[in-house]
């Protein structure tokens, strides 16, 4: 199973744990993530689009063209990149005038995109290409009823006509992964509520207000940890957790792990290989009894 891997800007920086743990998990499952050579920023959803819509689509199109050259589908870890690339792909298919403009720009740079690439999230690969059975087969460490709150966020599941992956209101993909590796899903209300996304960079107060509700709800549902599929959600919920605690004078203290980190733990991969030390809210206590 080989894929054109689009890491996204945060994988080598703020979401380093995600990239590292995904590579480790991929090795176990026989997935080969071939990083797209010289990939560029996808446009980051709204960030570039609000500034210049055509520019944003062109940025995504360059990556699609590079992947098409590799004759593979794009797989990404970041939900925002997943959405941005998917949307650009969809618009290029639907709007022939737009495609014409973008084709011209790509040609001027020695590239071309004929529309053959599919954009997929890593979770999609795990569920549909690897399969839950194969995932379960590789579990070596019992998670012993670890109570996990699966958090989906936004772009992984919405809008359904762009990302077309899981149910936008009652998704189950993360739940299935958690179960497959021996964890216990905690039922709580806000698993699809927005954390605030890029507001964390620009209107931190607003983001914190939104994320606080998610964290408290997960805590009140007795979750031991929250698993996430997106670097920005992770940043807001993990790196900013302390700020949220002090701003709103609440105690949260819930570790936020990427689902690939949790999978890695279940597979018996060492904490170092999963970059568990990079999570801001410590995961030590959580996995003490589980580490081999």
């Amino acid at each position: 199973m080989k894929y054109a891997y689009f890491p996204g800007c945060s994988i080598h920086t703020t979401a380093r744990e995600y990239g590292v743990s995904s590579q480790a998990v991929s090795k176990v499952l026989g997935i080969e993530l071939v990083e797209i050579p010289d990939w560029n920023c996808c446009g980051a959803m709204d960030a570039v689009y609000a500034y210049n819509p055509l520019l944003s689509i062109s940025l995504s199109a360059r990556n699609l063209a590079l992947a098409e050259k590799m004759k593979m589908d794009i797989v990404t870890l970041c939900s925002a990149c997943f959405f941005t690339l998917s949307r650009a792909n969809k618009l290029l298919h639907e709007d022939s005038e737009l495609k014409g403009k973008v084709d011209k720009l790509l040609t001027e740079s020695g590239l071309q995109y004929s529309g053959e690439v599919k954009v997929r999230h890593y979770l999609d690969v795990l569920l549909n290409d690897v399969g839950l059975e194969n995932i379960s087969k590789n579990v070596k460490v019992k998670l012993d009823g670890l109570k996990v709150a699966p958090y989906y966020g936004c772009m992984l599941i919405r809008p359904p006509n762009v990302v077309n992956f899981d149910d936008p209101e009652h998704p189950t993909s993360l739940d299935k992964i958690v179960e497959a590796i021996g964890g216990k899903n905690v039922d709580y209300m806000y698993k699809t509520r927005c954390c605030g996304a890029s507001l964390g960079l620009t209107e931190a107060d607003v983001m914190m207000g939104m994320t606080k509700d998610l964290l408290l709800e997960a805590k009140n549902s007795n979750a031991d940890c929250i698993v996430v599929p997106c670097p920005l959600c992770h940043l807001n919920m993990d790196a900013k957790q302390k700020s949220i605690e002090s701003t709103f004078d609440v105690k949260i203290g819930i570790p936020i792990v990427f689902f690939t980190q949790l999978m890695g733990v279940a597979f018996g991969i060492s904490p170092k290989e999963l970059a568990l030390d990079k999570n801001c809210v410590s995961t030590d206590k959580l996995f003490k009894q589980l580490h081999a």
Partner: protein
Amino acid sequence: MKANNKHAAANDRHVITAQMLDKTFLAEVMKMKGGQDVQDCIQCGVCAGSCFASWAMDFTPMQIVRMLHLGMKETVLSSSTIWVCASCYTCATRCPRGLDIPMIMSGLKNIAIKENIPAKIQIKPKFHKSFADIVQKYGRIHEPELFLKISNKTAPKTMMQDAVFGLTLLRKGKLKLKAPKVEQKAQWSSLFKNASKEGAQ
């Protein structure tokens, strides 16, 4: 006595009159991607109900669309709503008329940036241009530079907090001081420049 109603910026008689309404604005909105269906809105309020950031907005998404119908350009483009929208798509997934509200908000941001209309919150317009500038330079985002560019020098306390945050990330190895570099420099540069120019028209 100064009017307290949040629309009071209207006119000195504190009423909405046809003079204040810009029909060309609605036409402009309907031309942009996502805006073509804006007249279909029946003001049901599912978007306002679904928006988990609406508490931080001066107008709910529904009210923004209402104002688009009327052509209240100034009020819409200077609202905090369009900048606080996180593009989470919860509203659009439930809209009974299929309006792509996040795309409309993006489009409105675009107009506000182009026409240099100040928002009630200062950071946002700078964010988009700063982000694009950095991506132009390096092909990918460079967080430290972004932090610096969007910092509001008039809010020293926030600057301090951001700096502390940056240091935390740096210590954890989650921030690279060295900027990334795109390899195909010439190709990249020309694509970015041409796309920018073409898109700005």
